[in-house]
């Protein structure tokens, strides 16, 4: 599938059939690992739960008027005043924990994915440009990447949030700042290899413009590895966001993410109300683990050395 861009334009119907066959082959190969299939299913359930949170969840956790402190810290399975059952109990503010978790999943996914998309775009542009231009610009960018990567992500994010303050936008900025270097390095590495290939030579020989060669020839062929890095990074970004929120320097209290829900439950942990902290924790765990396992499978599939 990585040579699509280099192929001369085929009749439309033909390309479609090719694409379909490629997708089918891809799905079959992915399905060869039961762990990956189960993980993908779990991931889909979580994502659907997050997307349709307003429809599924029995209560709107952001509607403070609906909350009553009398309902706080009810154990899982208790029936609520309005007749539905708190399957996962309630938290310290009297929120239905299942609803809070679904909405929390939503925030965690939004922050995680948007930070990856922004960071990936930045890394893609810088990495491609560095590999194509080469020379001083390339050297300067790679020094910057080295410098950034010599510091652990959590430290960089901590520093930025310490200077910026907490908030959704600021957390995303911090996560982007942490990640862009990984993508820039990955894209540059594959672009350096692709740059020397015949099809780029041919494109240059046909005197196509730089922009066209970059976007239509190099870019598509550099995408697969960076997408794999991106999948893993979504789970890293979500974990990092949860950690920062848990420490009280990430997302604000008004829109609690999974990390903040866990932090809020922490104070009741020693008193024996374990579910307030554990339930969002398991949700976070399921999310991160399923993303990691799916990403693992994708990486193995795209690595020819491991394919046999």
């Amino acid at each position, binding site marked *: 599938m990585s040579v699509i861009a280099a192929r001369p334009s085929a009749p439309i119907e033909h390309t479609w059939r090719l694409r379909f066959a490629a997708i089918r082959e891809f799905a079959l190969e992915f399905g060869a690992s039961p762990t990956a299939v189960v993980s993908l299913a779990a991931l889909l359930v979580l994502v659907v739960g997050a997307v349709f949170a307003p429809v599924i969840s029995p209560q709107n956790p952001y509607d403070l008027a609906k909350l009553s402190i009398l309902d706080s810290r009810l154990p899982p399975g208790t029936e609520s005043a309005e007749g539905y059952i708190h399957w996962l109990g309630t938290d310290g503010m009297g929120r239905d924990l299942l609803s809070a978790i679904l909405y929390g999943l939503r925030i965690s996914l939004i922050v995680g994915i948007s930070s990856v998309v922004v960071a990936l775009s930045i890394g893609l542009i810088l990495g491609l440009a560095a590999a194509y231009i080469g020379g001083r610009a390339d050297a300067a960018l790679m020094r910057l990447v080295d410098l950034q990567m010599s510091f*652990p992500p959590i430290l960089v994010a901590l520093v930025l949030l310490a200077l910026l303050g907490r908030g959704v936008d600021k957390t995303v900025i911090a996560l982007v700042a942490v990640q862009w270097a990984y993508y820039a390095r990955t894209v540059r590495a594959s672009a350096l290899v692709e740059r020397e290939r015949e099809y780029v030579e041919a494109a240059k020989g046909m005197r196509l413009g730089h922009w066209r060669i970059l976007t239509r020839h190099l870019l598509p062929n550099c995408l697969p590895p960076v997408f794999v890095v991106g999948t893993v990074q979504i789970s890293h970004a979500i974990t990092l966001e949860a950690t920062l929120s848990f*420490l009280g320097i990430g997302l604000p209290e008004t829109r609690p993410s999974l990390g903040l829900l*866990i932090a809020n439950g922490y104070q009741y942990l*020693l008193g024996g109300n374990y579910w307030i902290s554990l339930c969002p924790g398991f949700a*976070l*765990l399921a999310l991160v683990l399923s993303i990691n396992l799916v990403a693992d499978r994708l990486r193995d599939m795209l690595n020819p050395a491991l394919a046999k």
Partner: protein
Amino acid sequence: MIGLFLQRIVQGAMVVLAMSLIVFVAVYAIGDPVELLVPGEATQATRDAVTRTLGLDQPLYRQYLLFLKSAATGNFGNSFVFNIPAIQLIMQRLPATMELALTAMMLAVFIGVPLGLVAGRKPHAWYSRAIMAGSILGFSLPTFWVGLVLILVFGVLLSWFPVFGRGSTVSVLGIETSLLTLDGLSHLFLPALNLALFKISLLTRLTRAGVREAAPQDYVRFARAMGVPPARILFSHILRNITIPIITVIGIEFGSVIAFAVVTESIFNWPGMGKLIIDSINILDRPVIVAYLLVVVILFVVINLVVDLLYAAADPRVRLGENRR
């Protein structure tokens, strides 16, 4: 070797300088530095005085030089909360963090490497698969969440270990340590294990990969053909050859352990500098934040320097490569 050493020191100094510039721009140049450095309730007279002392009427490069000068002498101002020099506050907390980080690293090495050897020797055995599955779990579990579960299980349900603070300490050469009292050790165990878990997984995977890579090589096959017992091949032939990457990773990861100590210290109320920085961020104790940043940057540069040198000392190829140039 000396050339390499000097080159790395100059590089390190550049990094510290670059970071000081970034911190300077972030804290002093963006926004009103007076707002950042003076408590909210200060009077106009105090503000004017601070403006003058900081030399804000001078051009920006002069301000930066001024900042460098005071930073070089370790003067980052007093903490708003504790009212003692910020740098002194951090130095007081440094031993606790180092103690935690070192213990965690030891745990990671003494648990992770043997697990990796076992998993690498028989990669398809059920226990090897179990170890690898466990390492994926160790990678995926967020540190703070593991900390909570450890507290819940070993602290609350089983009451085996204390989960709060550092316990009793003994002063050795002026440094407080909890490594030498039984109470201190029992306080240290859970946080250190929490901090080590991720690194255990990492070292397990690294060691396993190393063993699998070494297994089909000629020297191993030759040793096997000579009838050297498998355990001896594993420990004296293979382990020796995969030591270099392991040492490098240990060195690199030590920095990340110190960074992650922020999380563990907050959960277990460990009085190290990680907990200090979180508390300082939450109450906007800017001098402490600035001092912490620069101390950590210097710490990292030193760690990276030591790793590079160790690497050169351990691997003749690196050393010779440098000499030839």
